[in-house]
């Protein structure tokens, strides 16, 4: 029983990480249909931001809290810059965007290597986040890592903030208007290019926040982004374009699935099974879990 509960919690925590890394994509890929392979490197930028801040802020706790907004701004700025330099020229060519941003991601990785060195760097986590709390005591206790709880909390907060922004603020309304009908939004006086850039800023900024969170559980190095990027895209593909709830549900389902399969088989087999499962799922629902139906021809 403890095993089942334990693996469920593990799955939820894996799901929280997945959600956090995919959340930014749900805006840039899900809403704007831009396949940004450099998203992983924006996560990396967030992690390195934490590392740099810790050099000047001694307290691990404070530096982590400071890193959250700073990383949001740093990665967001990188994203907006990328949008302005390249992506805005490519809105009609999503496949080319994929390859172009792959090139950007290569360059950003090498840049990180040149600035911070090829080896991973370390950050200190606040002591409270390296511990765990016991849910069920006894001989085989069920514990949950504080770092995972923190990430779960952060993921939930980010989802709530993003969906409130999209629903309630004028900016959110403009983003949705542009997503649904670009031409109409344009003639209604919305500056679509500003909206695009802002949306990209937010989506990339969320990647930066995810990067801060990842310093608690994983390595901080030039290749950390490539390790997660495909998983993040798969979450969106399975969840369905343009729907936040699809992203959320799928992140947690994949997390639990991964953890249960890992427990009963091996990590490699679990990964292969999850990937094959995704292909099979898309046979059943090629547009993902939730879709926005449109009348457009293509």
């Amino acid at each position, binding site marked *: 029983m403890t095993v089942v509960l334990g693996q469920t919690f593990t799955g939820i925590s894996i799901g929280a990480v997945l959600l956090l890394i995919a959340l930014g994509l749900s805006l840039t890929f899900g809403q704007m*249909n831009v*396949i940004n392979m450099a998203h992983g490197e924006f996560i990396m930028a967030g992690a390195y931001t934490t590392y740099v801040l810790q050099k000047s802020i001694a307290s691990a706790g404070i530096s982590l809290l400071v890193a959250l907004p700073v990383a949001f701004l740093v990665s967001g700025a990188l994203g907006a810059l990328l949008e302005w330099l*390249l992506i805005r*020229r*490519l809105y009609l*060519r*999503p*496949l*080319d965007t*994929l*390859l*172009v941003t*792959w*090139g*950007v*991601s*290569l*360059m950003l*990785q*090498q840049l990180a*290597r*040149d600035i911070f060195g090829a080896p991973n760097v370390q950050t200190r986590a606040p002591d409270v986040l390296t511990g765990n709390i016991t849910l069920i005591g006894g001989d085989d206790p069920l514990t949950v890592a504080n770092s995972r709880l923190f990430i779960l909390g952060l993921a939930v907060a980010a989802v709530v903030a993003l969906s409130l922004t999209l629903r309630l603020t004028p900016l959110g309304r403009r983003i949705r208007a542009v997503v649904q009908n670009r031409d109409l939004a344009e003639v209604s006086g919305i500056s679509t290019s500003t909206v695009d850039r802002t949306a990209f800023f937010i989506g990339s900024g969320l990647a930066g926040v995810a990067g801060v969170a990842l310093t608690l559980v994983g390595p901080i190095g030039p290749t950390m982004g490539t390790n997660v990027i*495909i998983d993040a*895209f*798969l979450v969106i*593909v399975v969840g369905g374009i343009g729907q936040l709830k699809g992203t959320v549900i799928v992140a947690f389902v994949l997390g639990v699935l991964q953890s249960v399969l890992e427990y009963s088989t*091996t990590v*490699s*087999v679990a*990964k*292969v099974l999850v*990937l*094959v499962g*995704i*292909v099979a799922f*898309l*046979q059943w629902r*090629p547009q993902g879990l939730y879709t926005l139906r449109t009348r457009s*021809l*293509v």
Partner: protein
Amino acid sequence: MNLLKGPSARAAAGFAGSAVVLFALAPLVLSDFRLGLLAKYLCIAMVAVGVCLAWGRGGLLTLGQGVFFGLGGYAMAMHLKIADAGPGNLPDFMQLYGTATELPWWWQPFANPLFALAATVLLPMAVAAVLGSFIFRRRVKGAYFAILSQALAAAFAIWLIGQQATTGGTNGLTDIQGFFGYALDDPVNQRMVYFVIAAALLLLIALARQLIHSRYGELLVAVRDSEERVRFLGYDPANVKLVAYVVAAGMAGLAGALFVPAVGIISPALIGIVPSIEFVIGAAVGGRASLVGAVLGAVAVAWAKTALSEEFPAAWTYFQGLLFIVALAFLPGGLASLAGIVRRRRATAEEKKAAVIPVGEAA
């Protein structure tokens, strides 16, 4: 009829020219080592021929060509390893890492050279046919298809690595000594392998050219540009795409198979996400829709990788990144489109249209 005469004469001249370069000039001027490298580049170019067909013509950005390259390569390497070990013996790595005392059942058919040779092409095609018929029939396309094919490449590489006892794991299949009875460490035989590869490449180009200029080739472009529209004309686009995908897979498989004797190794490092993307980049730089562009682009990029990484390893990464960006963001038709653009400018200095990928200019 008259229309076809111009391009086809040019194509014939092109074929003759490249045959002279590949069969006479290159062996004369290149050292054995450089000729070996060229053989490797030509294998990559063979994949690019398929990419040109599937992506350039069919709009299928397949980021999983590594899977088919790997299937072909492993099929060939498995046979060569069995042959190296000799009758009744296990390949060296199985003796080291495995527990089996005899060949696993799925290795056994590869002891037969004919089966193995056929499998190098037919196995990737069969896998592509099964995958493709599911994927295309359910209308998974565009970016979804690209990401999915990437995920498949990742899954295949992880699976191979996990089966160390029977696939050699991360190491792959290495130390291949002979090629159907010929010792591969003999430079004369290496040269023979090179000629086989060069001939195979020319053959694939001829095949792809025929496909591109056939009615099917026109239909494929139509499907790329407007799949729905084709459907309303009474075609099932899934089948049209499937043919291109399967042919491209077969080409990648053949390339993988010939890569093995040329380089002496096949490993998961050639299959995963990164190599799969690298298979595409050459075609993108040279011009995805143009056969000549794709092939020359693939060779040039592979050559640049060797040359630049010999001198400046870090610079190679920047250069590769820049190549992606410049070629795709600013020159979507690749270098091949430059020629077309110039020609069109000269012919008619009229409407400034967005750069479109020229269709009538393949090969």
